[in-house]
């Protein structure tokens, strides 16, 4: 084997080794990315649940009712005008 052929063979082996190394590191990096995405998925699910709960609190009738009254939007809670005042009721009961 001549020196030139030996060098070519060495370069070939080196190239193959570097390629394998690159693929292996890429595989590890991808696996790490996948693992991070799994963890992120768990985090996002938690965030989603938190947001859903917060929305539920804001949508609760009590909160809406309080906001309607506090902001004085001119809106009237359901059936508000269709009933007597409590004092009128007690007076009616005593009659």
């Amino acid at each position, binding site marked *: 084997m001549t020196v030139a052929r030996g060098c070519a063979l060495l370069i070939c082996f080196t190239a193959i080794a570097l390629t394998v190394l690159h693929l292996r590191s890429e595989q*590890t990096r991808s*696996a*790490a990315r*996948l*693992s*991070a995405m*799994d*963890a992120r998925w*768990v985090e996002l*699910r*938690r965030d989603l*649940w*938190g947001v*859903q*709960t917060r*929305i*539920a*609190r804001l*949508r*609760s*009738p*009590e909160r809406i*009712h309080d906001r309607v009254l506090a902001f004085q939007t001119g809106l009237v*809670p*359901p*059936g*508000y*005008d*269709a*009933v*007597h005042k*409590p004092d009128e*009721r*007690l007076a*009616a*009961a*005593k*009659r």
Partner: protein
Amino acid sequence: MNRTPGSLDRYQRRSGVVLLSISMTVLLGLGGRLAQINVVDRQRLVDYAERQQQGEAVLPARRGMVLDSKGRVVAATEHLPDVYVDPTRIKNVEELAAELSPRINIPASRIVERIRSRTATQYVIIERRVDSITAEAVRAMKNPAVGLTEHPVRSYPLSESLSHVLGWVGRDGHGLEGIELAFDTHLRGKDGHRSTIRDARRRALKNAEGEVVAPVDGGHVVLTIDAEIQRITEDALAESVDHVEAENGLAIVMSPKTGDILAMACYPTFDPNNVTVSKPEDRRNRAITDPVEPGSTFKPVIVSGALDGGFINKTQKFDCMLGTRPMPGRVIKDVTSHGLMDVLGIVTYSSNVGMSFIAEKMGNPALHATIRRFHFGEKLGIECPGEADGLVRPLKKWGSMSTASVAMGYEITVTPLQLATAFSAIVNEGVMVKPRIVKRLLNADGSVARDEAPPRILGQPVDAETAKFLAREAMVSVVENSSGRAAQLDHYQVLGKTGTTKLMSKGAKVYESGAYQGAFVGAAPVGREELVALVMIRRPNAKIAYYGSAVAAPVVGKILGQSLPYVGVLPDPQLASTGP
């Protein structure tokens, strides 16, 4: 110096031998070490590496949500962080407390106290379940001694509203009461897990092969309850209980046609987000767990049996003896004195004397059969834990006074739900529908696991014509002319029946002086009854008010008056033109 080729060869050979010997020794050493690692110490090192490299990450399953009939979330699970401190990594406790205090809104002195009380551990919880803003503020400290750990927390966005129906969840994530307990298996998910390979800094590098088990989220429960009607009911109930300084109160709103429970409230209430601070007696859903003597609200049930059985007719007159009837061992009295009255008058003015005559005409077997036809004395099968049967004693145990007592709603106990359901049957032209509180069950992805079933008919305990007479004449008359006036509405005609019951003293089996339960059960609008509402106020301050007409009828009026427009029931045409 000149070297001969021979001497060079010798030098090279010697060097080669030395180098070869060193290489061989190193290689042999390495080989030996390799053999030791791979053969002798293999298992120990593999276990050690796995412990060091592999980590188990839990993939938490979500406990399903509970929703009201309009899709509002009334119970959900979220993850909230606890703020903890590692005392072994603190340089200066006072400095750390001063920095942490404004972020979590706890006095620095208390933080110092907590840390110093547990210096031996590396995990001292300073504050539990902080919100996202607080958590972010704590993270921004970037102090290695302060950390956050997240835990699943069951949240009830309506706070104290609907708490008796929903129940609550224990620290282990299992339902302990109410819907949470009844549907625990459906709501509870199953946690998944994945094994990860970690790097030297314990960061997850990759998933270990074949070691991922996906979490299975729990299903959802959709209730028949409407959170808005629930709010209206709770507000009205609380106002009355507080006003008359009562021990407690309860209310049920239901649809007589479908049996759907639209609201079920008890007051005082509790916050399921923080159960431990409430009293056990305030956590009971008394609308289904506590049977009570129904008093005069029971009279329409008895009258229905008397009319249906042909024991009396609508035009028959009874001498109500001006409200006092002496009987062996007791005197039956009315609140107001009346002479001759037909059955319409007896119901309208809730005459005990008149009812005693009607009951005597029926006789005990017919009375007992009437009561059983309305399913009193047995569970109605509502999907909430703790439902009581009520007490209907067997005929052979009825005494000499039982006939009159039962006709007045004593010597028998019923749950408020049973009473509301029986009243709904009368309102619904005699058709008794099974009450229900769960509309449907959903899978975690929203697909239907158990669809809404059509209303289940329990029977026809009263003839349609008799029911119409009782509902649309007798009980309308109660509201128009008698004790139910406080339930009248401007835009809807209301029907109903009041009841005021003496209460047994706690411990002794005698009626306690001054202890009453005021009740009213009503429905509206007359002729197209959409809602039935029952309110019971227990042990009001008798000096303020105690009759059902004063303590419960106004609450029913308020509930119906606000709920009917909300559910889209148009005002009665004859009343619509007359505004308040």
